[in-house]
């Protein structure tokens, strides 16, 4: 290199720092869209991860199905009991559902939104890191965009933060960077559900006077415009009403076990029905 040896290290270190700042400024300037470099990396990484993951899953399933069968009979008995109790519960709820439909017709209420969803498979997850994200096998080609909400059977999963042509990255709602406008279902107390990493979530800014109890369901309020109203987020597991604070400190257990996600739904279209 043409640099004098005395200053070589300093000059190269300075060049590296300049490269970082140029890269950072270009990232920060981008208007919410995933950068081209990031899209390319995601497109390259995901097929590689898929190959490794499918091989590992094969071994894992083989182990679970054929070798690790201890306690299966006991589990089978428990599950049969649970199925019978759940069946009777479903019968009760289906009656209530029909009654609800009748009342809705009677009151002439219509659903406020109609959603179109796209099913996607989870092809990667970052469980061990501080950042809680998952990768989906659908991207721009299937109509996914940054900001779209992602749900699973249990409730809300998160929202899309990066999209490449065939892959999307989802910020899980338990991540520290996630904030969702939420309601405590029973008392209709409004707050912000913030992710709390491995601890689950915290419901912030709920006033002290609200009577929130352990076991209450927390649902999305639909106010921020990202998540439709009424999607289950979790259950209250502890309520702390400090005397000096205006707000309660509410811990919420997520309704979805994000470590076991395999398939999810991305809500791609929300539209108000014409009356």
């Amino acid at each position: 290199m043409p640099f004098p040896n005395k200053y070589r290290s300093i000059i190269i270190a300075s060049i590296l720092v300049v490269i970082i700042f140029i890269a950072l400024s270009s990232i920060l300037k981008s208007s919410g869209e995933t950068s081209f470099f990031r899209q390319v990396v995601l497109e390259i990484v995901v097929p590689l991860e898929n190959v490794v993951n499918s091989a590992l899953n094969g071994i894992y399933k083989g182990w679970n199905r054929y070798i690790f069968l201890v306690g299966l009979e006991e589990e089978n008995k428990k599950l049969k009991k649970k199925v019978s109790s759940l069946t009777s519960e479903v019968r009760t709820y289906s009656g209530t559902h029909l009654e609800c439909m009748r009342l809705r017709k009677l009151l002439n209420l219509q659903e406020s939104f109609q959603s179109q969803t796209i099913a996607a498979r989870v092809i990667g997850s970052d469980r061990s890191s501080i950042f809680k994200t998952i990768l989906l096998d659908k991207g721009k080609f299937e109509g996914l965009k940054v900001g779209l909400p992602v749900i699973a059977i249990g409730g809300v999963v998160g929202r899309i933060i990066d999209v490449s042509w065939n892959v999307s990255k989802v910020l899980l709602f338990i991540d520290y960077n996630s904030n969702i406008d939420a309601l405590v279902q029973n008392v209709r107390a409004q707050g912000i559900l913030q992710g709390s990493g491995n601890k689950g979530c915290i419901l912030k800014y709920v006033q002290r006077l609200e009577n929130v109890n352990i076991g209450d369901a927390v649902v999305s309020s639909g106010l921020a415009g990202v998540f439709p109203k009424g999607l289950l987020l979790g259950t209250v597991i502890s309520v702390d009403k400090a005397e000096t604070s205006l707000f309660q400190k509410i811990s919420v257990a997520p309704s979805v076990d994000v470590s076991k996600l395999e398939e999810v739904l991305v809500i791609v279209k929300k539209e108000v029905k014409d009356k």
Partner: protein
Amino acid sequence: MIYYLLMPVFALLLLVFQTTVLDLFAFGKIKLEISLLLVIYAGFHLDIIKGGVLSVVLGAFLDCMTCLIPGFHVIFYILIFIISKNISYRVYLEGVSFIVVFTFLCVFLEGVVMFLIYLFFFDVNISYDIVNTYLPQALVLCAIGPACFALFYRLEVLMQHGEEK
């Protein structure tokens, strides 16, 4: 030249291995950040251009794959590389105990930096996750550090051999 051609491919493969196989071995509880060990190794043994480029590439790929704070890994890896490089001029690097202690400090420093970023920029206290994620990670990585360094040395020799041919 072959180094600069192979290095991004090797970096990408290492990160895929890190996020899939190693994650499975760690039961998803600890993030085994072998890429950080490689950056420390680069600071100790590679020249400043090769090591610097390797740190930038590893950091940039890792940022794209997992990170939610723009540029965190690029900046942190370069910082670790510069610290390691400066230390390499002053300390005997082959001692296992030195590698163990230095690796522990670097991983723990990553946790502290992350904690401070969240505290000052996002007003969130992530001390629970720092203790539960970075402390075990630092302990495991410092334990496997010397073995990884030996492996990296073999790879470096192999690459040099390829360049000479």
